[in-house]
C-alpha cells in the first residue's frame, strides 16, 4: 500500500493527463523504432527482395528449361517418326525386291528345269533313235544273212554273186519297210 500511495503521489507530481505525452517515451520509442527500421532496411528487406528475385529467376529458368526440353523431345519424336517412315518404305522396298528376286529365281529354276527335262528327253530320244537304227541295221544284216542262208540251203548252192544278192535282199527289205511302215507308224 505504501508503494501504491507513492505511485499515486508520483503520478500526481507528473501529469495525470494521458493526452500529454511523456517526452522520454517519445524519445525512447522513436529511437527503438529507428534502430529496428535500420536493421530491417539494411539486412532483412534486401534478403527477402533478393529471395523473390532469385525465385522468379528460378521459376522462369525452370519454365524455359522445360520448354527447351519439350522442344527437344518434339524434335526427337519428329526424327523418330521420319526414321520410322523411312524404315517402313525401305522395308517395303526390300520386300518388293525380295519378291521380285524370288520370282526371278523361281522363273529361272523353272526354265532350267524345263531345259534340263528337254535335254533329257532329247537325249533319250536320240539314244532311242540310235539304238533303233543300230538294231534295225543289225536285224537287217541278220535277216539278209539268214535269208541268203536259207535260200542257199533251199537252192543247194552258194549264191556267189554277192553284189546282186545284197541288192536283192536290200530291195526286198525296203519293200517290206514300205509296206509295214504306214502300219508301224
Amino acid at each position: 500500500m505504501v508503494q501504491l500511495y507513492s505511485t499515486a503521489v508520483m503520478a500526481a507530481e507528473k501529469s495525470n493527463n494521458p493526452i500529454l505525452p511523456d517526452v522520454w517515451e517519445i524519445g525512447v520509442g522513436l529511437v527503438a523504432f529507428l534502430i529496428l527500421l535500420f536493421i530491417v532496411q539494411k539486412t532483412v528487406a534486401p534478403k527477402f527482395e533478393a529471395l523473390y528475385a532469385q525465385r522468379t529467376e528460378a521459376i522462369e529458368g525452370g519454365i524455359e528449361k522445360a520448354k527447351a526440353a519439350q522442344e527437344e523431345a518434339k524434335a526427337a519424336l519428329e526424327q523418330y517418326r521420319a526414321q520410322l517412315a523411312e524404315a517402313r518404305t525401305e522395308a517395303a522396298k526390300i520386300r518388293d525386291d525380295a519378291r521380285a528376286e524370288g520370282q526371278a529365281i523361281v522363273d529361272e529354276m523353272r526354265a532350267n528345269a524345263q531345259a534340263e527335262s528337254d535335254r533329257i528327253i532329247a537325249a533319250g530320244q536320240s539314244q532311242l533313235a540310235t539304238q533303233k537304227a543300230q538294231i534295225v541295221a543289225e536285224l537287217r544284216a541278220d535277216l539278209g544273212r539268214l535269208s541268203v542262208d536259207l535260200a542257199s540251203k533251199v537252192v543247194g548252192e552258194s549264191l556267189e554273186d554277192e553284189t546282186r544278192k545284197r541288192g536283192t535282199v536290200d530291195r526286198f527289205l525296203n519293200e517290206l519297210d514300205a509296206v509295214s511302215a504306214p502300219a508301224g507308224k
Partner: protein
Amino acid sequence: MGMLVLAEGGEDKFQAPSVSSFDFPEIFAGTGITKPMVQIVLSAIIVAVFWLVASRNLRIVPGKFQFAAEEAYTFLRNDIARSQIGNKDFRPYVPLVVSLFTFVLVNNLFGFIPFFQLPTFSHFGFPIGLTIMLYLLYNFVGIRRHGLFGYLKNQTAPPGVPWPIYFLLVPIEFFSKFIMQPITHAIRVFAAMFAGHMILLVFVGAGEFLLLHGDGAVAIVGPFSLIVAVAMSFLELLIQVLQAYVFALLAANYIGAALAEDH
C-alpha cells in the same frame, strides 16, 4: 497483482481505475526507466530478432517457418506498401511498413500477453513519436517530389472542383491534411489501446472487489465480471491486431498520397 493493485483503493472502498492506473513507478528509482519503456525496447528487440532469424537462411523452396515469415512479409509488402504507395514508388518504403506493422503489433499484443498485460501504445508518447516521424517523412518526400507549392496544391486543392469552392475547400483540406491527419493517426491507436486496457481494468478490478469484498449475494456477481474480462481480452486481441494493421496501412496511405501525381 502489480498494476491491478492500482485498481482498488482501500480495503472496503472500491476505487474505479483511472488514468493514474497507467502510471508506473520507475523500476530503478531515479533512472526514469518504467515498464512501458522496457516493453518498447523489448518489442524492438523481439521484432528485430524475428526478422533477422526469418531472413537468415532464406531458401527458394521455403520451410514452414520461412513460409510463415514470407507470408507476413509478402502481405505487408504487396497488400499494404504496394497497394497504398503504388507500383512505381513502393520499394523504398517496404522496410518502413514491415517495421511499423510488426513493431506496433508486438507492442499492442503486450496488452494480451501475461506478465506484460499493458499495451505499450496506451501511453500516448509512443504513437506520438512514430507519428511525428511519419509526418516529417511523408511531407518531406512529397515536397522533394513536387516542390513546396506543387505539394501543397496536390494536397489541398483536388482537381475537378468549380473554382469558387476552392476558397472553402483549401482551408478545410489544409486543416485536415496537415493538422488533423497526424493527430488522428496517433490518437486512433492510442485511444483504442487506452480504452481497451481501461475496460479490462474495470472488469477485473470490479470482479476482484466484488468477489473479495462483496456482501453476501453480491459476491456471486464477481465471477461474471471476470468472465466478461476474459471475453473482452479476446476482443482486445482482435482490436490490437487490427489497430497495428490500420496504423501501418494509414502510414503507407499518407506516403502514397504525398507521392501521387494527382490527389
